[in-house]
């Protein structure tokens, strides 16, 4: 039975690599850290897929569009603005 070659002491294992994905994407790994991470990916299709999945996750999250303001709330803000302006006008000469 083939033995898995002993890992170089500084090599990453998958369990470590998945924890570095965000730092990698954020560009906050040291140069050496980045090299180690990329060296691991080059030999590990599973972690490469994992990284692709994280990118997909970010991409799909980015497609969640913020809800538009419902019309009744828009009216409330118009009222808020008018109250504020009325208060300012009553308070005396504005700053123009």
């Amino acid at each position, binding site marked *: 039975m083939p033995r*898995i070659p002993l*890992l170089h002491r500084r090599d990453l*294992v*998958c*369990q*470590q690599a*998945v*924890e570095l*994905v*965000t*730092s990698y994407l*954020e560009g*906050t790994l040291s140069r050496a850290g980045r090299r180690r991470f990329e060296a691991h990916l080059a030999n*590990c299709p*599973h*972690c490469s*897929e*994992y990284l*692709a*999945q*994280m*990118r*997909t*996750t*970010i*991409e*799909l*999250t*980015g*497609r*969640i*569009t*913020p*809800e*538009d*303001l419902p019309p009744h*709330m*828009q009216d*409330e*803000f*118009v009222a*808020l*603005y*008018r109250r*504020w*302006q009325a208060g300012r006008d009553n308070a005396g000469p504005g*700053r123009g």
Partner: protein
Amino acid sequence: MRQYSKRHAAAAVHQDKDDDLLAALRAGDEQAFVALVRRHHSAMLRLATGYVPSAAIAEEVVQDTWLAVLRGISGFEGRSTLRTWLLRIVVNRARTAGLRERRTVAVADPEPAVDPSRFDASGAWASPPERWAQEAQDRLRAAAIAARLRSAMGELPARQREVVTLRDVEGLSSGEVCSVLDISEGNQRVLLHRGRSRLRQVLETEFGRT
């Protein structure tokens, strides 16, 4: 007006538009105020929701914030983007409302990105991820998944939800998020990592068979 993209290259355009609206608001244009509210309200509301126990209180915080904006509009010097400024006010208001004061985030307890049982003793994948990253980009499936992702966001711990929302939905930079939430770069990254990792797990249960 349709949704504009808030991300990356669009950020500069976004800022220009804010500047125009701000100038109009200073000149007393009511519609400029409404337009600004429409642009920023949902991000503000989502952020406030992370601090207060009910949607009603979150809406109050956001309304108070807009009132503070109207009162302080001449004090805004444009050193930060308008959005960062607005979101900072929301956070300060929500916090000083005394509803949940937590400046620093406990990041000590480890919360692995992937269930440890999926690795063997050496730390290599024992149960590797199914391949779906590519397939998930498919428009139809992506649309179907949006609702699931939205509810998964709601289930994230509040701090993770805030960071993921601001970064990945609203498109703020890491620096802006730190400034808005008053957290360190390191905390921001940990929260982002945990939040995104959880969302990936949710997608995995949708797309993968693992």
